[in-house]
Structure formats: structure tokens, C-alpha cells
């Protein structure tokens, strides 16, 4: 339970208590009433989340990650490994999978749910070899005629000395370039944190969808606060002023569509979240596939070209 949900804690305890007492005897009127009060409370809270609170939901440990969507919304996923030149980066997963009976190439950042898994997944912060794997899979998809579906969920690309040695900048820039030029339809879903260039590397699709409580930022609120005010503690202020939420970005016209989450956030119901994502991705794909290839590529160019916001 997140801090801003704590007002619901007594209700939740009561509900647990009632459920325990009537164990196995079906649900009572008491339980129904408590549950509906809890839902009302959640609906209240989640309908007016601040940007900083959204950032917390986007980072929720129980939030569905790329592999969860692969499990719930896709079938026959075959994970492919490695960048063919240095290593396999486990913070990016990918491979072909079926979405409602059609083959697609899926690439996404992958966080870990516990410390051990997070060490393997590097907290969802890819190294250059992760982006090179992503690029390799996207190029294969293009050659084989598979649409590309990416899942973005990273605080940012990893920033260590080894990343500079292996060319983090080049890996990200090259991935952006490759993805922008893919001749197949591309759909990106920002499922949690869309952090900076590390997110953008696999986000530059024909359509950018965002989950209702996800974020897409030029830098994490902490990093931005450190840059602007030399103190990461002002992250909530940075979050509020940088327009990082799906709703604000939709309003600015920077993303295409918001995918609604189950009540109380995607972490409450992975299956329902995945159903909504699958539906949104499918409808984007259907629309994109109805266009001629060169028309789709021109529109993709214009989509990014027209982001100007200047005065002359």
C-alpha cells in the first residue's frame, strides 16, 4: 500500500477481518458494503493523483512488468538473448510472440520484483548491449515482416563507467535511428516509468500509448530536481512542473492514447491490465496496417517533426 492510500488502511483491515470470520461461507452483505466503500475510496484517490503520486504508482513493485504482459496478453513467446557482440542484458527482454493469433516482435525493459531479481535485471536500467539486442530484434522483425511492440519501463539507461566504455550514447542513438526507420508498423506502450533517453531508445514508434498511471520524462524527477535545485529531495516539485503524466502528455499532443488501468492501479489486477493493453495495441496495429508503407513512414516522420513549440 502506498503512502497516499493509507487512509484506506482501516477499511482494508475491516474487510480482511470480515472475510476471515466468514471463511468459505460466501460473501455477506457486510463484506459487500465494505468492499464497495473501499472501491469508492480508491476511485476517489486515484482520480486525483498528483504527478508525484503517479510516479509512485508507476514504480510500484507489484506493477505488471514486460514479462507479465507477455504472460497475460501474448502467447507462444520465445525469448531471444544477446546482442551478438558482447553480452546478454537481462534488463531488456524480447522475442517473437503471438498477439491474438498474429505474430509480433516484442521488446521491453524488465525490472525485478525482489532484490535478487533486481540484481539480474539491473533495476530495469539497460547497458549498451541491451539496446543493441533491442536493435537486433527490431531489425530482424523488419526483415521478417513482423510488427514491433515495445514496452517501456525504466528509470533510465545505466550510467556507469563501463557504459561509457561500451558506448551507451551510441547504443541509444543507434536504436532510436533504427526504430524510426523500420518499415514495419511499430507500437510503444509505456507501462511504468519512461525515463529519459534510456526509455526513448525503444519508444519512437508510430503510436505511443501510455498506461493511465505511467510517466514519461526527460529525466527522473529526482535527477531533474538535482539538476535544477541541487537537491533530489525536491523531486515532487520537479514531477509537478515537468508534465510527466500520461494525461498531461496527451494534452500536449506528445502521446497518442491513454490505456485505462484497473481501479487502484495496474498492480491490483495484472490480467485486466494486460487485457486493456492487448486491446489498445491491437487496435493501433489494425489502423497502422491499413496504411501503405510509405504513407505510414511519412506520418511517422511528421509525428516527431511537428513537435516544435517555438516562437519566431
Amino acid at each position, binding site marked *: 500500500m502506498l503512502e497516499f492510500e493509507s487512509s484506506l488502511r482501516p477499511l482494508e483491515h475491516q474487510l480482511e477481518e470480515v472475510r476471515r470470520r466468514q471463511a468459505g461461507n460466501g460473501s455477506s452483505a457486510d463484506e459487500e458494503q465494505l468492499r464497495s466503500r473501499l472501491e469508492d475510496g480508491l476511485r476517489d484517490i486515484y482520480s486525483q493523483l498528483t504527478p508525484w503520486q503517479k510516479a509512485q504508482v508507476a514504480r510500484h513493485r507489484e506493477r505488471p512488468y514486460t514479462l507479465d504482459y507477455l504472460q497475460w496478453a501474448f502467447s507462444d513467446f520465445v525469448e531471444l538473448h544477446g546482442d551478438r557482440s558482447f553480452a546478454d542484458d537481462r534488463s531488456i527482454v524480447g522475442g517473437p510472440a503471438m498477439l491474438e493469433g498474429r505474430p509480433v516482435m516484442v521488446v521491453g525493459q524488465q525490472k525485478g520484483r525482489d532484490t535478487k531479481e533486481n540484481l539480474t535485471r539491473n533495476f530495469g536500467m539497460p547497458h549498451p548491449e541491451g539496446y543493441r539486442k533491442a536493435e537486433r530484434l527490431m531489425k530482424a522483425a523488419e526483415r521478417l515482416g513482423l510488427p514491433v511492440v515495445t514496452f517501456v519501463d525504466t528509470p533510465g*539507461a*545505466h*550510467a*556507469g*563507467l563501463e*557504459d*561509457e*566504455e*561500451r*558506448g*551507451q*550514447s*551510441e547504443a*541509444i*542513438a*543507434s536504436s*532510436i*535511428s533504427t526504430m*524510426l*526507420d523500420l518499415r514495419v508498423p511499430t507500437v510503444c506502450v509505456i507501462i511504468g516509468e519512461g525515463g*529519459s*533517453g534510456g526509455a*526513448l531508445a525503444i519508444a*519512437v514508434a508510430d503510436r505511443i500509448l501510455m498506461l493511465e498511471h505511467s510517466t*514519461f*520524462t*526527460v*529525466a527522473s524527477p529526482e*535527477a*531533474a530536481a538535482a*539538476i*535544477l*535545485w541541487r537537491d533530489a529531495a*525536491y523531486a515532487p*516539485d*520537479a514531477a*509537478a*512542473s*515537468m*508534465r*510527466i503524466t500520461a494525461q498531461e*502528455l496527451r494534452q*500536449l499532443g*506528445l502521446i497518442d492514447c491513454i490505456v485505462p488501468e484497473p481501479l487502484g492501479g495496474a498492480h491490483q489486477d495484472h490480467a485486466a491490465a494486460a487485457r486493456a493493453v492487448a486491446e489498445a495495441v491491437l487496435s493501433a496495429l489494425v489502423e497502422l496496417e491499413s496504411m501503405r508503407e510509405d504513407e505510414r513512414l511519412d506520418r*511517422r*516522420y511528421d509525428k*516527431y*517533426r511537428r*513537435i*516544435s*513549440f*517555438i*516562437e*519566431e
Partner: protein
Amino acid sequence: MKEILKRLPREGAQRAASVPDNLWVRCPRCKELQYTKEHEQSLKVCSKCKYHWPLTARERIDATLDAGTFREIDAGMHSSDPLHFSSRGEVYGDKLEQYARQTGAAESFIYGTGAVDGQSLVFGVTEFGFAGGSMGAVFGEKLTRAIELARRELLPLVVVSSGGGARMQEGTISLLQMAKTVAALDRFKAAGLPFLSVMADPCLGGMTASYAILGDVNIAEPGAYIGFAGRRVIEQTMRQKLPQNAARAEFLLEHGMIDIVVARAELPSLLGRLVRLLATSNPAVARRRGRVEQHAGV
């Protein structure tokens, strides 16, 4: 903002404010004192440690292009402060005016046409004094227009980059300029034209991780810090002090990220040679150039 821009001094007379009228300057790297006048004559390269100080855009233009050939385009384009960013005493609109006053430039990127060794090209350069050379919407738009102009006119493209990366106060709009510039660059390159990318100290984040590292030839000034992340960020990530040479130009050369490290004074002749070598052979470009010239009655 528009008011401020109108009051700016005209091209050429500007930037006087940023030149110290002190007799001496101290090198930030080796702390050596040197005569301001000699320092400027040596293109702001430290006489002792050869540190290449940041140049203003105007100084860079003078130090790189054939004298008097630069024609600036879109000089007045400025930020619309799209997020109305104002928080904790950081009022972006005020900052923009302050940067404009300090640098005499309307934004952190300047572009136009010019010549090196008598050869025409499109030239872009960052203004480091304007918001640390950071990339926001105007930077992205001007760079994209520079790339599109070069593609249309079949000219080679040279960009000198020095800056801190994407600009925080324009949020995700800044981030997406990375996509916009790379998309334009891909089309430029597909047309068979060369992009020569010059990186000067410091070149970071959003610029390095988008267009700047994608040169057909990546060129760096000696000792320039060029990286995805800044020193401080890496030290926090690694929880240890970085070696002095880490992510400097020579380190990148060693690790295969750049092609050439070149002293400031040698840059024009290097660019001239590269343009002659790379921008004249593509038969498709030559054919189209012929058509364009015929059309123009040349």
C-alpha cells in the same frame, strides 16, 4: 521575450559582454595564469595544459569557417516556454531572458550556411552560455531545419556540439527533440550526404545520445568530456572516483566511439579535407546537384 530580443545588439557587435576585460585568465584545468590577449590569439587553448576552453558560438564560427562566409538563419527563433515552467524560484521565462541578455543569442543553437576552404556547407553550433547549451524545442527545431536545408541544397552538414543535454524546463518536449533530429538526420544520410559531428567540452546526455554521436565522422577536441552521463552522475552510480581521463576525447577514441581528436587550430583544414573527400563522389548526389544547378540557371 520578444522585447528582449528586439533590444539585442546586432550580429557582430554582440558577445562583448562575455569577454572578460581582465588582463589575465586562469585555466580551469591546470590553474595556469595567462595573458587574455595571447589566450584569445591561441583560440582559447591553454598554453600549458592545452585545455580547449568553451567558445561562444560566434568565436566558434570565426575559428572554423572562412572569414565572412557565415549567413545565420532563423536567428530570432525563441522558446515559447511551452510548460510555463515555474517552480521553487526557478522561473524559466525569466531565465530565458537572462540567457539572451548574457549571450546576445536568442537560443542555445545557431545555424546557417558558410564555407570551409571555399566549400559551401550548412553549419550549426551550440551556444554554451545559453542554458548550458541544452537542447529544448528551439534547439531541436533549428537543428532539424539545418539538416533539412543541407538535404535540400545537397550540402554537407557540420555541427559543433557542446552542452549539458536535454533541457529540463521543457520536459518531454526536450526529450522528443532527440527523436526529431535523428529522424531528419536519417533522411539526410540516406540522401548520400556526409554529416561531420564535432564534439567540444562538455558534450553530454541528450545530444550525445542522439544526433551528435551519429556523425559519418565523429570529431572531438582534445580533453573534451563526452559521454552519456556527466562525471558526477557516474561517480554516484559507481560509488567511486573516476580516473581523470574517463570519458574524455582520448578515452572515447581508444574505445572506438570517435574517429579523430583534433586541436582547435587544425579543425578548419580537417573539415575542408573531409568535405572534399566525402561530399563530392556520390553519383546520385552529383546528378541531383547538376539538376538543381541547371534549374537555378547556373
